[in-house]
C-alpha cells in the first residue's frame, strides 16, 4: 500500500520556531521541542525543519539544537538552512537527521548535489526550490531566503538537480507562503511532470483539501505545509494540529 507523506515544515531561527508570510514577517510560534512532542503524539509522517536565518546571517547550523531536535523525533526528519558543503552534511546526518535540504549552495555550486549524493546516497539529498513569479507571471528560482532572484527556471533547475543525483525536490512558492490560499498549482504541475524523483509541494496549503488535490490531481509524492499545522481560525491563534490517519485516508484514497 502506498501512503503519501504529509509534512509539517517548521521554520527555525536560532532556537525558536517562527512562521512567515511570503517569506517575510516571521511570527514567533514557540519552542521546537514542545512542537515535536505534539507531532510525535499525532504520528506525523515526517517533519522538516528549515533554519531561515542561517544562509542570510552566514552562520552554520547549530548542531547542539539540531541534536536535541533529532533526539525527540521518532519520525523522519529533514533539515535545511545554511548547508554549504559535504562536511556539514556529514555532521548533520550524524546527529540523527534523515535528510538534508539544500537550496542556495546547490544553485551556486551544483556539483554539491552530485558530491553529496555520491557520499550519502541520493535519498538523503533534498533540493529545495524557492520560486517567486515576476511581474509577467514567469516563475523564477530565488535563493538566500527569497532575497535574491536568479535567472533559473524552476523546471530546468529541478531537471538538473535530478540529473545530478537529488533524491527529491521541494517546490516552495514564495508568493503563496503563509497565505493559506492553496498551492501554486501550475508550478507544482510543471515540475511534477518534468522529473521522476519525488516532488514535494509547499507554500500556501489551507489543509487537507489542498493536500488531496495535490496528490490526486497533481501526482506529487508528498505535500508540505506550515501555517495550517500551527494556526487555528481566522485570527490565526497558535495551535498545533495534524489530521488523523482516518481523516487523511478518507480524503486521499
Amino acid at each position, binding site marked *: *500500500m*502506498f*501512503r*503519501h*507523506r504529509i509534512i509539517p515544515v517548521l521554520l527555525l531561527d536560532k532556537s525558536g520556531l517562527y512562521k512567515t508570510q511570503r517569506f517575510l514577517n516571521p511570527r514567533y510560534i514557540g519552542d521546537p521541542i514542545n512542537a515535536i512532542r505534539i507531532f*510525535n503524539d499525532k*504520528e506525523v*509522517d515526517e517533519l522538516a525543519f528549515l533554519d531561515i536565518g542561517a544562509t542570510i546571517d552566514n552562520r552554520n547550523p547549530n548542531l547542539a539544537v539540531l*541534536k536535541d531536535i*533529532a*533526539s*525527540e*523525533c*521518532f*519520525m*523522519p*526528519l529533514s533539515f535545511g538552512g545554511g548547508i554549504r558543503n559535504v562536511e556539514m552534511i*556529514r555532521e548533520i*546526518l*550524524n*546527529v*540523527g*537527521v*534523515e*535528510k538534508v535540504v539544500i537550496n542556495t549552495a546547490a544553485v551556486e555550486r551544483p556539483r554539491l548535489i552530485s558530491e553529496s549524493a*555520491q*557520499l*550519502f*546516497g*541520493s*535519498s*538523503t539529498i533534498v533540493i529545495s526550490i524557492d520560486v517567486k513569479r515576476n511581474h509577467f507571471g514567469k516563475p523564477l528560482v530565488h535563493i538566500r531566503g527569497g532575497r535574491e532572484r536568479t535567472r533559473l527556471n524552476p523546471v530546468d533547475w529541478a531537471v538538473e538537480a535530478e540529473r545530478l543525483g537529488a*533524491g*527529491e525536490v521541494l517546490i516552495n512558492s514564495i508568493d503563496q507562503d503563509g497565505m493559506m490560499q492553496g498551492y501554486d498549482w501550475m508550478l507544482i504541475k510543471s515540475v511534477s511532470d518534468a522529473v*521522476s*524523483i*519525488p516532488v514535494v509541494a509547499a507554500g500556501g496549503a489551507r489543509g487537507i483539501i489542498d493536500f488531496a488535490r495535490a496528490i490526486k490531481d497533481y*501526482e506529487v*509524492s*508528498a505535500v508540505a505545509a506550515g501555517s495550517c499545522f500551527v494556526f487555528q481560525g481566522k485570527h490565526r491563534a497558535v495551535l498545533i494540529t495534524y489530521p488523523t490517519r482516518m481523516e487523511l485516508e478518507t480524503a486521499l484514497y
Partner: protein
Amino acid sequence: MTTIVDYGMGNLGSIQSMLKKLGETSIITSDPYVIEQASRLILPGVGSFDSGMNHLTELNLISSLNKRVVQDKVPILGICLGFQLMTKSSMEGTLTGLSWFDAYTVKFELKESIKKYVLPNMGWRKVSIRKEIPLFEGLDDDSWFYFVHNFHAVTDNIELVSMTSEYGYEFVASLTKDNILGVQFHPEKSHKYGLRLLQNFIRYY
C-alpha cells in the same frame, strides 16, 4: 546494553534516542575490541554498499563482527544499509558483503510507465509478516514502517524471509536467521511500530 556499530555511515543518534526512550543503555563505537565484548549489536547505516564495506574494512571491524556474530552468536540487528551489508553482494557495488545471509542486494526494477513508483522508495509502507518471530511480537500486517532505499535483498532461500513489503512488486523487507536479523526499513523513524520492534529486540534477543 546495546552496542551500536559506528562505521561512519550516518544517522546513529536517532537509534540511540529511541533506545534511550525504551530505557535501554547503549554505546556508539567503532572500536573492534568493544564490539568483541558486545552482548547485543546494531549495525545501522545509510549510504552506498562499497563505501560501507570499505569503512568496515578500514576500521578493522569485519573480523570482530564475524567473530562476535557468526562464532559467538550474539544477536545483531542490521538496519537499511547495515542489513544489505549482511548479504553477499550488491548491484550498487563490486565488493563482497559480510555474506551472513545467502542473499544478494539488487536494484529495484520498476516499470517506467507507472508514475507513482519512483526511486528511491521513500516513505511509509505497510509490511507483510512471513515468519512469526519474537522480533515482530505485537506487530501485524497493518503496521507501517519508514523506508528509504534504492536497493533491496533477494534470496532463493524462502526460509530466510521474515517480512516483505510492496513497491511496484513484493520485495524483501526483512531476513532473519537465528541471531542475525536484518530490516530494510528504519525502526528508529517508524514511531510506535519501530519502538515496538526495538523493544522486542532488546527484550527477546
